[in-house]
């Protein structure tokens, strides 16, 4: 089977204004969602208490809420977690009593409504830990970008590196925007997924740049735009097949791995879609608009044979 029997000749560079507009709209929408309603941070980042319990049959959330309010847990948020039998109770951080003690008390209260409720998990995160994790997450994102920019600069060229980073910034913004818009919980595993996706999506971009690096000496008299167009077209088959294959596997993770990895899988799925789009339409185009010239591409070392800087 082969989807791309003949090499495509799509003029990606000529139509780039349209793709920029689309990207701008996506980013604007994401920023709006980040402003209102904003990210729904999990307790990893806010600090607080989460108690996960399993009911023998579908849980009556209203009765659970009423019992908790009556017992003095007025700030308790009671929600289903994955299935109708799994329930998660979230509480604000408190300092007067130890978190596990509170967790056990919540369980006792829930047991007065349904005696056969089973404790699955108690998470207690102090407010200071939450703040630190947020800070670390931001730093991790920043360092990932800086190091990747440095690497592409070293291996290819500065403007290509900047193009790759611009395209890659897309991905986390849209993922975070999606999480804000849908109010899905943004926790540590989602953040890990976002960072992994940044690394992964730059894959796609690098493959295109690699082809441009290879093609340029063979295309005498071609403009940088032509070379980049050729590179995107010639790698299009691989880009689409790889993304499809990755999505198959991540979809299995989304549907089968349970609630704990749901946010993670969703983030990666969005990352693949946006990442594929931006490495086809944005990365090369923005390098071009940053002033990528024939000289720049000439100066790119064309590597033949094994490189010696494998990880």
């Amino acid at each position, binding site marked *: 089977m*082969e989807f791309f029997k003949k090499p495509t000749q799509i003029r990606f560079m000529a139509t780039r204004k349209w793709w920029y507009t689309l990207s701008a709209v996506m980013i604007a929408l994401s920023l709006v969602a980040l402003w209102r309603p904003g990210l729904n941070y999990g307790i990893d980042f806010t600090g607080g208490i989460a108690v996960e319990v399993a009911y023998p049959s579908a849980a009556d959330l209203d009765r659970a809420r009423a019992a908790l309010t009556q017992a003095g847990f007025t700030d308790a948020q009671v929600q289903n977690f994955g299935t109708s039998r799994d329930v998660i109770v979230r509480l604000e951080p408190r300092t007067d009593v130890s978190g596990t003690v509170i967790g056990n008390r919540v369980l006792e209260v829930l047991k007065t409504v349904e005696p056969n409720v089973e404790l699955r998990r108690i998470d*207690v995160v102090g407010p200071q*830990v939450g703040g630190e994790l947020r800070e670390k997450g931001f730093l991790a994102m920043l360092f990932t970008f800086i190091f990747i920019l440095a690497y592409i600069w070293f291996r290819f060229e500065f403007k290509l590196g900047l193009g790759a980073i611009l395209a890659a910034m897309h991905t986390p913004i849209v993922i975070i925007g999606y999480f804000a818009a849908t109010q899905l919980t943004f926790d540590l595993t989602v953040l890990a997924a976002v960072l992994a996706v940044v690394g992964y999506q730059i894959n796609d971009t*690098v493959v295109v740049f690699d082809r441009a690096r*290879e093609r340029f000496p063979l295309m005498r008299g071609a403009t940088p735009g032509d070379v980049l167009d050729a590179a995107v077209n010639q790698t299009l088959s691989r880009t689409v097949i790889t993304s499809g294959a990755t999505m198959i*596997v991540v979809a299995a993770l989304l549907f089968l*791995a349970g609630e704990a990895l749901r946010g993670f899988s969703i983030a990666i799925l969005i990352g693949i879609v946006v990442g594929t789009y931006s490495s086809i339409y944005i990365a090369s185009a923005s390098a071009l608009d940053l002033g990528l010239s024939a000289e720049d591409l000439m100066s790119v070392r064309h590597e033949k*044979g094994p*490189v010696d*800087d494998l990880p």
Partner: protein
Amino acid sequence: MTEFPRWKSITVLLALIFGVIFAVPNLFAEDPAVQVARRSYEPINNVQQQAIEAIVRDAGIAHADSFISDGRLTLRFADVADQLKARDAISAKAAEQYVVALTRATRMPKFMRQLGLKPMSLGLDLRGGLYLLYQVDVDGAVAQLLERLEQEFRKTLRDERIPYVDITRTGQQVRVELRNAADVERARENLFKANPDLTITSGADAATLLMELRPEQVKERQDYAIQQNITTLRNRVNELGVSEPIVQRQGLDRIAVQLPGVQNSAEVKDILGKTATLEFRLVDTANDPEEAVRLGRAPLGAKLYRDRNGGPVLLKRDVIATGDQLTDATHGVTQQEGPAVFVKLDGRGAAEMLKTTQANLGRPMAVVFIEKVRRTVERDGKKVEVDVTEEQVISVATIQGVFSSSFQITGLRLNEASNTALLLRAGSLAAPIYPIEERAIGPSLGQDNVDKGIGALFVGSLLLFVAMAIYYKGMGLIADAILLFNVVLLAALLTLLQASLTLPGIAGIVLTVAMAVDANILIYERIREELRNGNSPLASISAGFDKAFSAIADSNVTAFIAGVVLFVFGTGPIKGFAVTLCLGIVTTLFTAILGSRALMHFIYGRRRRVERLSI
């Protein structure tokens, strides 16, 4: 015929053998087991192993396997009922000698264990258990040091008969106010002799001396406190009987504790975080405690305490011995006075105790129970946390005879006696600790996570294998074999490193499979391109690999960079994810570039002519 160096084929073959050997232990299921460790922390030997096996056998329980690893004995059973019965039997017969913990053990055959093979260790989110992150109050440790110095200064000055007005602590300073300015030099010499590494300067007026800790001394004390706390927490965890506990420093002033399988988190936490210790002091019989209460201050050289009923007791300021000087503590019940803790003092404590009891026969001595707790109080409408030291006189007894190293303490309630003995045995915390993060994962959730995670990995891989076989036909099957090789190699590396597998770690493996296919696709698309350009099949394979190489290398390096950053900044399960991601990239590069080429060489390379490729 294509050219492919023999040594590369051999490397691939060796990697395959290595992968299979180390990955295989993970295929065996687990059974309930008990783990037995000696209370003295010495490793269990064969004689003790046989004795314990005999206890279990006498209780009518058959064990499936019995072996010693890391100085602990593991007995594996067919079901949970046998496991629990065995634990009770061992505890009933030999509780003083051994600590018994419930655990799970692999069904892996004996010969594999003798080869030193082990299955992957599972993270808490996969096996259930308790994770605690403690903040160490390092300032508290420095305050304790200053308090000790203050007491030493008093003793030194008194021993040297140098009169002083007061000795006070402020910040990281101890201020000594002498009665006569003429004594300053003598006092300085003597204080310096006792503690040569201190900096002692003159104070504001002629009769005052100042002792201040240097920054490196403060730092040293803080490091010591954390190390000491880690040791103490390890001892306490061992006393509690937890299999494979992890206690490690995290960052500057934190300690992470992982207790697999622990369910009763509240009780465990209570024991771990306790900063309880004992002090032995003489009772001040010369002054009236009621008088001190009325005046609101204790007379010179004495300190006002409360007993268990809230009544005032005046004790001498000098401590005879503290909990640090205890070498052993056990609990029991005495006939006359109920629950008791039997303690043994070290040489210094014993000498002091001997001297004190000789000089004070017939006088009362008190035992003070000291505990640091963190309380939240309302201050200016805001909730603030304050650390309170609760000191309580638990017993006052007349010194009936001269004693030194061994004696008993009464006046405690039964569970207090056992907990206090445990705490004294395990050592006291050099600085108070407070939990700032707690995660308790139930066993059913752990098992669920394993089942679902592995299920997703299995189904995802299967779908991918089918898709590759359909899209690239024969070559797709080669890719499938290579992907399988990749997973085996990754599992082997994770097992070898004993990096604990977490749910995000499983996600990392799934993602590795997804990303590894990319390297294969890059190569196959290149081969197809070369074929379209009219090259011969073998030349196309060769060119496909060569030309795809730089793209594969560069694209994986960027993903690797993201993985490393995640590892550096991540904690807990995220670190597990980062480790699998990074190792996965290494195995992907190896299998896709070397492994895949070796396999193609094996299939096509040895033929004289290849008419067409199945791609």
